[in-house]
């Protein structure tokens, strides 16, 4: 018989009570406990932070989503973007992208040959920049705990392997990640961050209220980073205001009671935006709206991250830095499975944006299987012979 802890029971009870609207009686029946015990568990859930209740002032929401126009931000105002027309004018005034030239540039960066000490250093750097990710319908607390162990100690056989930057999970898994990390939790540099996808990930097809609730929930659960998706439908239909306002609203929803806030990564789903011109405009739009990071993809749509797309986004953050002195992060995600590929991304970061970006605060790989390939490469460099998949742990 499996022993279920009170914390676990409190979580289940809270789910049934708050998510499913069950009464304490019904909860007692379902969990095989008394309704008094159910009441005590719900109290525990509130006290321990499993449940966070936030009060949403509807007047505040009205400000977040104006009837028409955009909610200008400090960034956008500094660049003259104060309303729909100026947003559109700004984005359409950006220099165009020539796809062939961009792809040639990326291909040329990919010819860099990183060997020996440089390769060794690059492999460790890659690990430090990974958002170790599990975003499956089949995710369970157990799966997340296992992921977190891997994040803390990627190679049990070699403790010199650094830890990853963050784990990236669905909102309902945040609490398990937080719990499993314990004192290892941090901001990606001080410790391992907890990134949560939110805003009706991956499609983003829901109401703003639900997206904000999704975000607040994840933050309340202890997420240090929110990976939101933009409304691609709105973007492609030309409704840039909605895309902009949603980012502004989610950015606010990342705020915590103590005045701090979770970092916001804005996912474009570049595979749906299709053209480089769109991706460039989305990048600028997201930065103006308040993004801390711009991110390529959810990993659920092909093509996900590509080197040319990432080079383009790196060019945007480089240009933003030259304009403002502020550094925005970039996160390619999806499809980066091999060390060789990841090293090419690092070369792109260093040569396009600059080495300052090789930092967990400014660059992340959204990946799952990449870590094991990097570990295999590390083992090869340490031992001098090729390793095999059975010598690294499956998540």
């Amino acid at each position, binding site marked *: 018989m499996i022993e279920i802890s009170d914390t676990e029971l409190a979580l289940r009870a809270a789910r049934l009570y708050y998510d499913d609207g069950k009464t304490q009686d019904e909860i007692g029946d379902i969990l095989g406990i008394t309704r008094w015990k159910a009441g005590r568990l719900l109290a525990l859930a509130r006290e321990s932070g499993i449940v966070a209740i936030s009060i949403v002032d509807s007047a505040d929401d009205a400000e977040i989503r104006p009837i028409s126009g955009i909610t200008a931000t400090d960034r956008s105002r500094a660049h003259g973007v104060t309303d729909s027309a100026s947003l559109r004018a700004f984005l359409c005034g950006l220099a*165009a*992208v*020539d*796809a*062939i*030239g961009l792809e040639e540039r990326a291909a040329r960066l990919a010819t860099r040959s990183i060997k020996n000490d440089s390769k060794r250093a690059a492999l460790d750097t890659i690990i430090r920049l990974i958002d170790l990710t599990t975003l499956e319908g089949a995710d369970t607390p157990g799966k997340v705990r296992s992921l977190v162990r891997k994040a803390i100690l990627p190679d049990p056989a070699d403790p010199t392997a650094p830890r990853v930057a963050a784990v990236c999970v669905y909102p309902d898994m945040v609490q398990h990640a937080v719990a499993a990390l314990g004192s290892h939790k941090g901001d990606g540099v001080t410790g391992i961050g907890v990134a949560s996808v939110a805003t009706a990930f991956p499609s983003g097809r829901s109401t703003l209220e639900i997206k904000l609730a999704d975000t607040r929930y994840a933050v309340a659960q202890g997420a240090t980073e929110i990976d939101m998706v933009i409304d691609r439908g709105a973007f492609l239909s030309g409704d840039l205001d909605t895309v902009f306002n949603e980012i502004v609203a989610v950015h606010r929803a990342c705020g915590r009671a103590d005045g701090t806030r979770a970092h916001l990564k804005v996912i474009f789903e570049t595979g749906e935006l299709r*053209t*480089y011109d769109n991706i460039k405009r989305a990048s600028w739009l997201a930065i103006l709206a308040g993004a801390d990071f711009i991110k390529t993809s959810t990993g659920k749509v092909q093509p996900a991250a590509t080197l040319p797309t990432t080079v383009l986004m790196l060019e945007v953050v480089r240009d933003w830095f030259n304009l403002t002195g502020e550094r925005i992060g970039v996160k390619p995600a999806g499809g980066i499975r091999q060390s060789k590929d990841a090293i090419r991304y690092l070369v792109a970061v260093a040569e396009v944006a600059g080495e300052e970006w090789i930092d967990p605060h400014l660059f992340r790989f959204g990946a799952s299987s990449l870590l094991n390939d990097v570990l295999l490469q590390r083992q090869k460099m340490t031992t001098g012979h090729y390793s095999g998949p059975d010598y690294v742990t499956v998540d």
Partner: protein
Amino acid sequence: MSRLAIPKTYKLFIGGKFPRSESGRTTEVSSPTGSFIANVAKASRKDARDAVVAARAAWSGWAGASAYNRGQVLYRVAEMLEGRLDQFVAEIVESTGAKPADARAEVSAAIDCLVWHAGWTDKFAQVHGGANPVAGPFFNLSVPESTGVVALVAPSVAGSSLLGLVSSIAPALTTGNAVVVLASELAPCAAMTFAEVLATSDVPGGVVNILTGSVDEVAPWLASHADVNAIDLTGAGREIAVECERAAAETLMRVVRPGTFGPTESAFNRIAAFVEIKTVWHTKSLA
């Protein structure tokens, strides 16, 4: 009662106008029987220089005209020539002693030569250019365009008083070149009468410039002129051709050596001799 005829003054044809040679020189032209026909202008190097200036000024407009338009203009020249067929026959008979039937055949051939080239203007680029299937995401097209200002030494052989001249001019005009022609010393009058045809045929002034005079004297000036892009030496004698080719080397001027084409030959490659192939690459993507 007999009437005293009005003889024609033969001048040069430069920039659509008929100036005398700036040198004031003329050459007496006589018939085979020795009777005086005319004093034709004897062009100097300065006349050649003026002709190059006129040709350069006219070139961009002619090269930029639509191929359809150039075709119609060349056809118009043929029409005008047809209208003056008898005049040319009479002039050729008088100046060369040719049989009227032969003279008529020559002028007819010149007319047909113009019609043939008129039909080429809007086909040449299709045949001589093309899309190149390069191994990359590029749209790649090669098109022939006119070389620029072309100097022509018209052939001086029997039976080509007019046909040799027209066979030199037409291929260069087809693709949009502007030309400076040194007329055959044997048939200066026909050349200048042909200039009258051109002047009344919608050919923009300066597109064709015709000089009469000494080929040996003027051709080297054209061959060494830095603003001439190509020279056709079909009508030049051996020694002067070598001198011209050597001078042309200084500016990498394109040279058609004597003998490359027959004096009255109409040929695709003769048109191709005065074009440059331009290849344009452009990226191809959905961006």
